[in-house]
Structure formats: C-alpha cells, structure tokens
C-alpha cells in the first residue's frame, strides 16, 4: 500500500503524459530531425541530406524573417494587452452582484465559439475597403472612406481588433473561474475591517487571482504567437508583408512554398520564443511575490 502511494501521482499523470508524448513530443522530434536535413516538396519522398544548420542560416539571412519578427511584436503586444485588459475588466464587472450575469457571460462567450475561419471572413467583409459596412457607415457620415486593408500601418490593427474580438471571451471565462474560486468569506471579513472595494481588489482579489492571471497571460501569449489562420484569411500577410507574423511566415515557408525544413526550423524558433516569454512571465510574477 505504501509503495503504491509513492507511485500514485505518476499514475494520475500517466494518461496525460502518454497522449502528450505520442502526439506532441514524437512529432516535435520529427521536426527537429527535418530542420537539420534538406526536406522540401522536391525531396520529401526521396533521401533527406543532412545539412546541419543551413536551414537556420537561410532563415537568418532572409530579410522577411526580421520583418515578421517586428510584425509579431506589434501583433502579440497589441492582442495580449487588449485581450487581457478588457477581459480582466469584464470578468471583475461580472463578478459584482449584477443582474443576469449568467446571460451576459453566455453572450460574451459567443465570439470565442465561432471558428477563426468564420471570424476572419466576417471581419474581412465588415472592413472591406469598397463594400464593407464600416466604410459604408463612414461615408454615410460624410467622411472619406478608409482603406483598412490597403494601408500597411492600419491592416495589422484590423487583424488585432478581430483577434481581440475573438480571443477576449477566453480571458473573461478563465478569470471568471478564478474570481469564483475566491472564498466570499474573505471579502466579508475585509468589509467588516472597513476596507474599500478598491483596497479589497488589490489586497485580496489580485493576489488570490495571481496564478490564474499568470496562466491566462501565458496561454493567451502563446496562442497569439502561434496564431496564423486569421492573418492568412484576412490579409494573407499583406499589404507589403505588414501582417506576416512569424507563424504565418512559417506556414508560407512550409505549405505555400514547400520548404518543410525551413518551416520546421521556424517552428522551433517559435517554441524557443514561447518558452522564453513564459519564463519572463514566471520571473516577473516571482519578483512581485517576494516583496
């Protein structure tokens, strides 16, 4: 019985580990392998030559790669800040004793239940330069219509808006779960002590919500970095590559141009980037903890 006890946590974890190992880890090894070989549409069913880090060299000498890094920075910062900010605010508002909070929550979640394909097409249609409803409204107001998708400085923001519309419900849902997990008696005690709502928020809610916020930020950031379907559908990376994020760059390398090795190499860079960012988040939250 005692021996079983010490194995127990591993038994609990076994199913997750088997699935993740089979469907995520083995494919990852395959990707690492091909990133060091010459695998393209022309060689995939033939012999793969070992070429070391040549694929990485190719990427690092491609100006489009550096451009996509810049685009990724804007896309990720914009999307994460907006999604987290709005999501936290709405989750807190829903947690105040308000009427029909369940109905609100259900309605708010809808965008996230629509697939990215649909979101992409809908926003593309709404913001269409010539036929979009938004420009139609602007013209009705007597203003000059705006080339949402033809202006390289603007297009990325339309994608961010679409992504925020689509992604924020997750943050609302996730942080709502966190807020619901807080024991209401803690608030009651604080209210008796005369703490304002504002102070209760900063001294009770936020610290207790910390692990949810951390997980939420990591999840949303990783999703945003890996996200490519929305850009693919809405702008296909244009105009002038102004919406080609690193993930879309990877998609194009692998599937549009058939450079599978380069695609795998970019994929590995993305993983490294994700891990580095998660690490930064963890450190940031640790520092605050020590104070």
């Amino acid at each position, binding site marked *: 019985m005692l021996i079983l006890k*010490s194995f127990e*946590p*591993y038994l*609990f*974890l076994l199913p*997750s*580990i088997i*699935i*993740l190992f089979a*469907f995520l*880890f*083995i*494919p*990852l090894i*395959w*990707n690492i392998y091909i990133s060091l070989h010459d695998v393209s549409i022309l060689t995939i069913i033939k012999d793969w030559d070992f070429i070391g880090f040549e694929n990485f060299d190719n990427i690092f000498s491609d100006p489009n790669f550096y451009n996509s890094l810049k685009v990724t920075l804007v896309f990720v910062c914009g999307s994460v800040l907006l999604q987290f900010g709005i999501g936290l*605010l*709405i989750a807190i*508002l*829903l947690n*105040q004793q*308000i009427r029909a909070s*369940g109905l609100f929550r*259900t309605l*708010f*979640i*809808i965008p996230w*239940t*629509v*697939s990215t*394909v649909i979101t992409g*097409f*809908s926003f593309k*249609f709404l913001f269409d330069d010539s036929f979009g409803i938004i420009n*139609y409204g602007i013209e009705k107001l007597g203003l000059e219509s705006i080339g949402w998708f033809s202006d390289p400085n603007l297009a990325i923001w339309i994608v961010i808006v679409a992504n925020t*519309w689509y992604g924020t419900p997750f943050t609302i*849902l*996730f942080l709502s*779960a966190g807020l*619901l*997990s807080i024991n*209401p*008696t803690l608030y009651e005690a604080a209210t008796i002590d005369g703490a*304002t*709502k*504002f102070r209760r*928020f900063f001294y009770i809610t936020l610290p*207790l919500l910390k692990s*949810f916020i951390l*997980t939420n930020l990591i*999840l949303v950031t*990783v999703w945003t970095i*890996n996200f490519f*379907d929305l850009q693919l559908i809405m702008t296909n990376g244009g105009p002038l590559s102004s919406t080609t994020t690193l993930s879309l760059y*990877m*998609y194009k390398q692998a599937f549009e141009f058939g450079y599978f090795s380069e695609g795998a190499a970019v*994929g590995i860079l*993305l*993983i490294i980037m*994700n891990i580095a960012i998660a690490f930064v988040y963890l450190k940031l939250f640790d520092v605050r903890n020590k104070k």
Partner: protein
Amino acid sequence: MKQNLPSSFVSVSKWFFAEKQVIYILLFTYLFITLVPLVWVLSTSFKSNEEAISLPPQFIPANPTLDNYLFVVTEPHIVHSLFNSFIVSIGSTVISVAISALGGYAFARFQFKGKNILLSVILGLFMIPVLINIIPLYIMFSQIGLLNSLLGLILTFQILIIPLNIFLLKSYFETIPRELEEAALIDGCSSLGVLRRITIPLSMPGFAIAAVLAFRFSWNEFILPIVLANRPDSMVFQVALYEFVSLYSIEWGYLTAGINIALIPILVLMLIFQKQMVRGLTLGAIRH
C-alpha cells in the same frame, strides 16, 4: 490607511467600483461590440444569397427566408458531419476533463520527484505550434490506421486541451482547502476517494469551465480535421461548412445559417454550465 492614498484616486476608484450604472454601461458597451458582427451573421442567414452582399447593407432582411436553414439541415452529408462533430466533441470533452482532472490533482496535491520538471515539460509541449505537427501526425496516423477516424480526432484534440485544462484544474484544486481533504484521509478515505467525495463536488465550477473549453476546442478545430479526417463519412461540421467558402464565391446565406446552427450546442452548453458554476459557488460558500 486611507489617508496614504491621494483622495482623488480613492474617489475615482470608489466611483469605478461602486456605481452600478457605470458597470452596466461598460457591460452593454462591450456587449454591443460583441454582438455587432453576430447580428450581421444572424440577419444574413435569413437573406437570399443575392441579397446577402448587396449594398447598402440591410440589417433587417427585405425578404426574410428560412431557405438557408432548410438547405443546411437537409443536406445529408452536413447532417452527418454535425453528428460526427457531436461524437468527437463530447468524446474529447469527457476524456480530456477526466485525464486533466487526474493530472491537475497530482500537481496540486502531491509532492513527488520531478514534479516541477514535469510541469515545465507539459507547459513546454503546449508551446509547440500545432501546424508543424501536421505532417508527422499524418504519417503516424496513416501507419496506425487512425486516419479518417473519429477516434483519431478525439485523441489528437487532446493535445490542444490537456495542457490548458491541467493548469486550469491545478489552479482550481489549489483553492480548495487542504484541511477538508486531510480530514477525510484521516477518516480512512483513499486519495481517489477523497478526489471523488470531497474534491470533485467542490471543483464543479472548475470542471464546468474545463468542459466548456474542451468542447469548444474540439467543436471549432479546423486545421487538424481537414487534413486528418476529410473523408465524407468522417468529416466534422467545421470542415463541411467550408464547402460554402469556395475559391470563386462565398455563399454567405448558407455559411451564416451553418454558423448559427454550430452556435446552438455551445450556447446550450454554456447555459447548463452557468447553473453548474453557480451551484459550485454555493457549495464554495459552505467551506470555511
């Protein structure tokens, strides 16, 4: 204590947190932003294809019609794909919540060798962009005969959900007071018994959310199923819907009707789980 903060800050915060009207104004503003594209989707689904993209856009259809819905629900392969989507989504929801609950519980409650490493590895695996796994997954599936099978989809969808739900449920279990479980352990319950009798009932809101997340990911996933299961008899709804988005034209009427049909199960699920979440809340109030 209060004097330490600038008074304007306090009053702003007071205004911010106290005023119910402001809360409702903010909520309705966000609701408006959320609903505008959806109202458009809803109204388009009642328009004929020609009217769907006509200018000036009409929010209320001039000749409302149910034809789009009739077409979508009477196409045999689309109905079949809906059925497939249900099997896949319910199957992967059940499996992922069960598996992640076990995993999350292990991380929340046990101290064991390699705990932090395992946790980091799971988090690390989550960082992998699924896109690069498509070709190796396809090769693997073709070798073990899981191509074009719903079971194959159920299993692959787990990679999208498990890491997320493990972290969610781990955080959730951590909020449940340990003393409750320790008391039960002393009473002679096994760890699994504790999980079942004490932890699970108290974690219902967490499970509710984990289930919603799992269902949503399975219901909406498009990139994996279109490559791994695109035979007419194993097609899921999202893939079947894409039939209306062809290179030459988008059939907005059918597409939007399909979108709305796809929304129904999620909405029903959300309403059910709302109740679950509230019940969890009242249970939570009992714990001291």
